[in-house]
C-alpha cells in the first residue's frame, strides 16, 4: 500500500459500483419476482426480461470486480485511471460543480411557481458567476433580454407553453 491518499484503498470507484449494483439488482429481482401478473395468454410474462437483465447485470458487475482485482494484482495499482493526476478532482472543483448543480436544482424548483423569465435570468447570472467572477452588468444585460426573448418566442411563436409564474403575460 502506497500512501497517496485513498487511491489504493480497497474501495475503488469500480468496486463500489459493482457492489452497489449487485445489491440493487438482488432487491429488484426479489421485488419483480413477487409481482402478480395479469392473466393473459403468453409464453414469457412481463417479469422474464427484467429478471434476465438483472441476472446479467450481476454477472457483469462481478466481471468488473474481478477485472479491478486482477489489474491491482498485475500492476500494483487498484485503479489505474485515477492514477493520472489530471483526472484527480480537487475539493474546489467539486465545490464549483456542486454549485452548478445547486443552481440547476433551484431552477427546477422555482420554474413553475416563480415563472420562466425570473428563474432563467437568475440561473444565467448564477452560472456565469461560477465560471467567471464579476461582470454583473454584462451578465444581467444578456440574461434578462435572453429570458424574455426565449419566453416570447416559445409561447407566442412556437406554441410551447412555458410557465408564466408571477409575471404571466
Amino acid at each position, binding site marked *: 500500500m502506497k500512501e497517496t491518499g485513498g487511491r489504493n484503498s480497497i474501495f475503488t470507484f469500480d468496486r463500489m459500483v459493482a457492489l452497489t449494483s449487485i445489491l440493487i439488482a438482488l432487491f429488484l429481482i426479489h421485488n419483480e419476482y413477487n409481482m402478480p*401478473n395479469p*392473466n*393473459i*395468454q*403468453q409464453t414469457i410474462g412481463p417479469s422474464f426480461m427484467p429478471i434476465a437483465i438483472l441476472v446479467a447485470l450481476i454477472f457483469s458487475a462481478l466481471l468488473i470486480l474481478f477485472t479491478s482485482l486482477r489489474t491491482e494484482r498485475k500492476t500494483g495499482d487498484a485503479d489505474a485511471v485515477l492514477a493520472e493526476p489530471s483526472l484527480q478532482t480537487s475539493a474546489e472543483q467539486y465545490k464549483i460543480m456542486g454549485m452548478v448543480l445547486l443552481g440547476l436544482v433551484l431552477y427546477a424548483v422555482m420554474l413553475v411557481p416563480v415563472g420562466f423569465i425570473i428563474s432563467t435570468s437568475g440561473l444565467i447570472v448564477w452560472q456565469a458567476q461560477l465560471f467567471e467572477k464579476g461582470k454583473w452588468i454584462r451578465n444581467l444585460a444578456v440574461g434578462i433580454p435572453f429570458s424574455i426573448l426565449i419566453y416570447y418566442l416559445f409561447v407566442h411563436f412556437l*406554441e410551447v*407553453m412555458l410557465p408564466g409564474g408571477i409575471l404571466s403575460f
Partner: protein
Amino acid sequence: MKTVQHRVYRVWIVAALLLIGIGMGAAGAVLAADYPGKSMLMIAPSKPGSGFDTTMRAVVLALTQEKLVQAPMTVMNMAGSVPGTAQIVLRYSNDPNMIAVMSTTGSLNYATGLSPYYHKDWKPIARLISAYYGIFVRQDSPYKNLGDLIKDLKNNPGGTPLSGGYSDDRLCYGALFSKAGVDITKINYAAFAGGVESAGVVLEGSAKALVSTIDDVMGLLESKQLRLLAVSPGKRMEGPLLKDIPTFREAGVDLEWDNFRYILGGKGMPDYAVKYWQGTLTKMVKTPTWQGMIKKYRWGDSLLVEGIDKFLDEKQVVITDVVKKLGMDKKAKK
C-alpha cells in the same frame, strides 16, 4: 331607541349583502359574457399525430375557420396520456380557460388501475366523435367472414394468433370476441404501439387477423393488401371500400363498439363556461369545416351533450367488465 338602532343596523346589513350579491352577480355576468376572454388552453394528452392530437387540432381548426371562437387557442401536447390526465385534474381544476380531449383510453386506464383518475375527477362537456374499428385479414386469407375467424379462435385458439394495438384496440378485441363466446384468455394477441405497426405481421402472415381503428390502416386497404371482415359501428359505414362491409351485428355478434372522444374541463369549471362550450361545440359540429374533418378522418358524428355523465358512468361499467375478461384488471393474480 335601542330597537331602532337594531333595525338600522339590520337595514344596513341587508343592503350591504344585497350590494355584494348584485356585485357578484354582475361580475359573474360580465365574466360569462366575456368568456373565454383571454386565450384558451387546449390539451391533447398525447403526442402530436396521435388520435387525441388530431381531434384537438381539428376542433381548433373548425372553431377558427368558422369564426365561432375569437379568443386565441393553443394546443398543448402532453406526451403520455396517463400522467397527462392527472395533470389536467390537478393543475387546471379551477381554470375555466382549459379544455382537454379524452377517450375510451381514460376509462381503460382507470379500469386497469393504471390511473387513479376517471371522468368523475373532471367535468365532461360533450362527446364529439367516435372512431370505429375493423377486423382485417390479408388479401389472400382463407377467412371469408368474421364467423370463420371466430370458429378458428374457438377450435384452435393457440394456432390463431391476432395482432393489434395495446390499448383501445385491445379493448375492442376483448369486447368482440368475449361476446362471441371465445375464451380470450387463451388467444395469442401480439400487442403493438398502434394499428400500422401491427399490420406488418398480418401482411407477412404470422398473425391471422388484425384489430385496428379503420382510419389507421386505410392505406393498406386501398392498396388491396388487407381485406376487411367486419366493422364495429351500429350501421354500415360510407365510402366505396366500406359500404359493403358487414357490421359486427350483421356478422353475428351482437355488439356495437367505438372509441368515443369527448371534451372536458377542470372539475371546478364554472357553469357558464361549461354552457358556453356545450353551445359552441353543438354549433361547430354542423359547420362544413367540421363535416369535412369527419369525412377526412372517417369519424362517426356522435355529439352528445345532455346525459354525457350518465353515458360515461355506463361505459365505465362495460369497459371494466371487458378488462376483467381480458385478465388485465389490477386484482388479477398469476
